[in-house]
């Protein structure tokens, strides 16, 4: 991987992803499961769990990079807009730093929804084993 190299991957928050997240982690907060509750707080429908995006990020790191010998060292994410069921988000990740001495790479990443709006951004540092 080269400095400033950019990778992209596209994901959809399908019913399977949404229900799988809830069944796995049991986060049944009404914002995520009760449309009437979500509407009380100005949302048009239930909001997808923010950490679903981290699941997509995990897939990107583990499956989409050219090397498979990777491990996540750290990550941060900031959320800007809600993501809803069946939204398609595009992850763009740029190699922002390469720490050759310890085989570590820092990506700056951003998720945009199908309307092109930024829904989240952050940084993830990985190591090459």
């Amino acid at each position, binding site marked *: 991987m080269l400095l400033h190299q950019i990778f992209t991957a596209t994901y959809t928050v399908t019913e399977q992803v949404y229900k799988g997240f809830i069944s796995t982690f049991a986060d049944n907060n009404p914002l995520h499961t009760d449309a009437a509750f979500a509407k009380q707080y100005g949302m048009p429908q239930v909001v997808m769990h923010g950490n679903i995006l981290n699941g997509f990020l995990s897939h990107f790191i583990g499956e989409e990079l050219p090397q498979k010998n990777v491990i996540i*060292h*750290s990550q941060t994410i900031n959320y800007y807009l809600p993501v809803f069921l069946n939204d398609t988000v595009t992850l763009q990740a740029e190699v922002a*730093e390469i*720490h*050759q*001495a*310890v*085989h*570590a790479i*820092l990506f700056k990443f951003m998720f945009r929804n199908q309307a092109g709006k930024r829904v989240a951004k952050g940084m993830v*540092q990985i*190591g090459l084993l």
Partner: protein
Amino acid sequence: MTQQEIKDQVQAIFIDITDNPTIVLQDATTSDDIEEWDSLTHIQLVVAIEKHFNVSFTAEEIGGYANVGEMCVGIEQKLM
């Protein structure tokens, strides 16, 4: 930046990364002396030091430093 200033800042980085406020680095300190200094912490320490001082090391440099004191000298040389 003086060698002492470098050591003080490196110590602050060690305390932050290891989450151990009792760490007092000496020139002779090695990973054997700090319980939290394992392989993954080592990577985080090097990355944090590179970012903080805006320097970069090679694997050979990192592997060649026998202790914290030698690393701090290495940082000082890169800042010259």
